[in-house]
């Protein structure tokens, strides 16, 4: 029996899921940085 399909679907989906998490971690980091910049801008205006 060819089990390649089941192995690829398992390992492939896991790799994609981990890549998505890494991308969301980077996106959240960028968002946090943007929020700090906004705070700095607000402070500079005061």
């Amino acid at each position: 029996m060819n089990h390649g399909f089941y192995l690829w679907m398992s390992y492939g989906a896991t790799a994609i899921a981990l890549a998505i998490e890494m991308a969301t971690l980077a996106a959240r980091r960028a968002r946090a940085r943007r929020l700090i910049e906004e705070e700095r801008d607000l402070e500079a205006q005061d």
Partner: protein
Amino acid sequence: MNWFYFSSPATFYRLAGWLAPWFFGLAAVLTAVGLYYGFIVAPTDAQQGEVYRVIFIHVPAAWMSMFLYFVMAAYSAASLTFNTRLGAMMARSLAPTGALFTFVALWTGAFWGRPTWGTYWAWDARMTSELVLLFLYFGFIALSNAFEDPRRGDRAAALLALIGLVNLPIIYFSVHWWNTLHQGSTVKLTGTSMHVAMLTGMLLMVFAFWTYSIGAALTRVRSIILERERRTRWVRAL
């Protein structure tokens, strides 16, 4: 050493930033060695053929899904009991990674189940309780973000995390309590019937997922700290 020194978000932020790359690096090395053992060293299973190699991610993911929930609940209990900010932030940072590994466990289980049991899914006690775990993670994430005041979200989500703890023994003992399609535990404290190369590959992947989870949680908690503490002087000085 004063451990409470690192319970401050400002000091933990720096510690997490120093530790996270090491854990990611270790996870990459362990994954490479684990996959080498899983695909090259470990022999083909006599009954299941090549498809059994799904265990090298399915079992570690399933173990991590339960372990991360336990740690998340422990941080939630600490944040409720001692009103610690960092405890709640750590619980929040663990939830997405826990949900990811729960999803991976369910997904890979389905693709292992189809060729071995003849079905992708059955409303079996082990699978259903693992699905409940996924919903608990989703509930935790949704509840923690449902309030404008993050501290209220922390408390509500912490309560849910503690209530959901009851699901962990259900998942673990489900294969003993009920007659399930899912097989019983192969790896026990008393020993295992697995080939040593299979066991080595699987345990290496467990440590790989474990170190990855720590790296991901530390990275995420740094962003949470920045978001929450952005009005403080030390964050603005970064």
